């Protein structure tokens, strides 16, 4: 470490040169280089599957590259380079799925992986000192499982900082946060990078807005290739979207989807939905199977021919609310109206929607199998599956294909197609595009809009506020078990998700709702 005073002359905090990584025949990374300058925030952008996380896993020593080199602060990392080496040299990574032990305290989690004796008092004072220094305040004695998601994320970062991390990799850190929490995190990221010339942050994200707001430099990956890189001033939302999607692939439809997702429209008050009430909740209280009250007060209506979006921070009661609406959970109090033919698409398709090792025909038969009797008409079911695959553009080897062999996007298309197969009168979907790439997401959104246009009452929950705004005609915000209808504006919804509901936003919404319903006052009487 020679004394280099000017920041511009410092070696890159993290440099990857010509990194190549193959999985079997698939080239996940093809000759990718990345320079993270000291004292900066570097945004790594790309669609799902573009290779962002793979690249960072190589940098952190979790994957050995097939070619290329890595250096930290100008010093090459010679193989075998392990996460232990990476951490010893001041590189830390916070994964999208946290690696915390829920039953342990914050202090115990911070101490995990360290050598020697566990001294509770000493670790607690470390946690407090980090809180004082960086603003990431946590109670060292709190059980991690009891903390909200945003605090768990703070705990992950504090864990890294406790090991004196100078270069921090954050994998999709804002995906689980409410907008205001996300803003706070991005401000912290900026401050961390600015606080010391040896600090740097790599921000893996697919949110153009976040990248443009906080980063100094941006690198864009597409299908394992670096397609754009440079200082943030060179880019706009449109040029970044172009780079992520590729010029040859970018159809006008996808283009519209980009605009919709990233620049929310004004409230669609003009789209008067006068369909009949299909889903209706009145002062509903829901307890989960363990008897914990998850929903305290929900009153709303979803009419035929409209998409109602539900916005909420993780753990606000949406899980129970959606399942009660789908007829899978009883209500403890209040009145809930839901048709018997309601279709439900749960967020975790592997756990809750598919028999992964069974054929698609058997997966079609699974729908409402509890209500069937006698022999199953396998021949008819197979024909219907084949028809479904071609009608809904599900790419599979055929009706006998095993569900596990389909790509995530095609699995989700199949799950949606199955839900819509019997022409239900209502559709409830939960995080319908989780883990899907851009094109698959657009296809799912199109299917939701088509369902609405066919006269279904559609209720969509998404943890991504932009998705709610992109597909919903009306928006409900759920905070701590209470549902409010709010104006379809990003800021208003974002605040309502955190429990800040101003009288103005509600009153305004009620006027709008009232106005749209006046033509049919007799419908509810």
């Amino acid at each position, binding site marked *: 470490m020679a004394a280099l005073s000017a920041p511009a002359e410092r070696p890159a905090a993290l440099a990857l040169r010509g990194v190549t990584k193959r999985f079997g025949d698939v080239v996940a990374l093809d000759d990718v280089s990345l320079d993270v300058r000291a004292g900066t925030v570097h945004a790594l952008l790309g669609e799902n599957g573009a290779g962002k996380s793979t690249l960072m896993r190589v940098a952190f020593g979790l994957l050995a590259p097939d070619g290329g080199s890595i250096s930290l602060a100008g010093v090459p990392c010679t193989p075998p380079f392990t996460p232990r080496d990476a951490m010893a040299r001041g590189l830390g990574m916070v994964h999208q799925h946290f690696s915390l032990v829920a039953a342990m305290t914050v202090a115990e989690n911070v101490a995990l992986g360290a050598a020697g004796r566990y001294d509770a008092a000493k670790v607690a004072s470390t946690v407090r000192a980090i809180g004082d220094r960086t603003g990431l305040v946590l109670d060292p004695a709190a059980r991690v499982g009891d903390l909200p998601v945003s605090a768990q994320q703070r705990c992950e970062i504090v864990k890294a900082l406790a090991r004196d991390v100078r270069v921090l990799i954050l994998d999709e850190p804002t995906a689980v946060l409410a907008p205001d929490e996300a803003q706070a995190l991005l401000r912290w990221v900026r401050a961390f990078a600015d606080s010391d010339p040896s600090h740097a942050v790599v921000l893996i994200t697919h949110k153009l807005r976040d990248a443009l707001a906080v980063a100094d430099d941006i690198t864009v990956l597409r299908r394992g290739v670096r397609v754009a890189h440079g200082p943030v001033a060179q880019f706009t939302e449109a040029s970044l979207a172009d780079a992520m999607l590729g010029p040859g692939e970018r159809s006008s439809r996808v283009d519209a989807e980009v605009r919709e997702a990233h620049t929310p429209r004004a409230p669609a008050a003009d789209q008067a939905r006068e369909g009949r009430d299909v889903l209706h909740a009145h002062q509903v209280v829901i307890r989960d199977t363990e008897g914990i009250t998850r929903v305290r007060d929900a009153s709303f209506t979803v009419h035929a021919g409209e998409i109602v979006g539900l916005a909420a921070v993780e753990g606000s009661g949406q899980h129970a609310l959606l399942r009660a609406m789908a007829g899978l959970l009883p209500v403890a109090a209040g009145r809930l109206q839901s048709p018997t033919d309601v279709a439900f698409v749960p967020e975790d398709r592997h756990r809750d*929607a598919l028999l992964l090792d069974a054929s698609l025909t058997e997966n079609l038969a699974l729908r409402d*199998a509890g209500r069937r009797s006698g022999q199953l008409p396998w021949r008819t079911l197979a024909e219907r599956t084949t028809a479904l695959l071609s009608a809904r553009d599900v790419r599979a080897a055929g009706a006998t294909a*095993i569900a596990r062999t389909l790509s995530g996007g095609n699995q989700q298309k199949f799950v949606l197609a199955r839900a819509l197969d019997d022409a239900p009168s209502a559709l409830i979907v939960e995080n319908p595009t989780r883990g899907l790439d851009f094109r698959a997401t657009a296809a799912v959104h199109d299917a939701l809009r088509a369902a609405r246009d066919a006269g279904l009452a559609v209720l969509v929950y998404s943890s991504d506020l932009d998705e709610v705004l992109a597909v919903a005609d009306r928006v409900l915000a759920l905070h701590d078990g209470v549902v409010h209808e709010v104006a379809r504006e990003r800021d208003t919804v974002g605040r309502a998700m955190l429990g800040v509901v101003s009288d103005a936003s509600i009153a305004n919404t009620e006027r709008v709702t009232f106005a749209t319903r006046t033509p049919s006052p007799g419908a509810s009487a």
Partner: protein
Amino acid sequence: MSATHQASWVGAVQRLALLVGGTVFALVLLLLVTGHDPSVALRALVRGAVGSWYAFTSATLVRAIPLALTGLCVALAFRAGLLNIGAEGQLLMGAAASAAVLGTVGASLGALALPLALLTGVAAGAAWAGVAALLRQRFGVLEVISTIMLNFVALYTVGWLVRGPLQEPTGIYPQSASLPKAVQLPLLWTGTRLHVGLVLAVLLAIGLWWWQRSTASGFRLRAVGQNPHASATIGRINVARVSVLAFLASGALAGLAGAVELTGVTFALYENLSPGYGYTAIAVALLARLHPLGVLGTAALFGALQAGGNAMQRDAAVPIALVNVVEALLILLVIAGDRLTAARSARA
């Protein structure tokens, strides 16, 4: 459809051939290592298992019957995602209940006595499995643990019965009185010991196979076994109900095995009525990949191995433990092979 059926038939035959080949290979290796002459030992084994019509029917097939019935019991439970390790205990309780009915009211019932004895065995097996089902559903007790424990309870219950209430009149031997001819299962071929339990096992295997692949309730069983969450969420299946019913049906099959063994082979209740059929059944079911028809094949294979093993011990002085080692090796090989194929197909 027919093409895939053909493929699965070919696959099943290939599999059975592979199993037999693997068995012989492992056995020869073990014999060499332990210093026995493989040719002498193997000749004794083949003679004991299939060397004559009598050996095939009275040694191999007679052993295959309880293995098939308990194998179906285990296959059904595993298919539903229930690790029922209690076939042995359910078999013993089936035999005990059957003996109790025959010993008390049997004589007065005439021709009805035998069917009633079998049904009592079925009910007792189901009830014994029901205890584990209740513990699982009500208190979340893992069925692996409860069924193993209940095996011991069943074993010692039989021990008490044959020294107490059900002991034969002279009070000398720890066993029940011998069953009169009238309540014994009819023989399939005179001159052999092969009884109609074989027909029962084959019919049940075919019935279970058809039920699982064709009916809505059979499909629910498979769906719950594969993924209870999706079964509840998408299938709106009452998972607890399906699990309990599957557990009862599974126990019923083992209970029937006990009643059949009592009325077809031993003709009396005693502690060593089963040489661990209920445990070998796990291997039988796993090697058949839980397929009811496959269970018939693997039950015959294990029946032959045990019959041949006895002959080998008698004629070539090779301890039968060697055969048990081979059985265990087979299971490990097959499970490892299945995992490997699954991993390969998941990657493709």
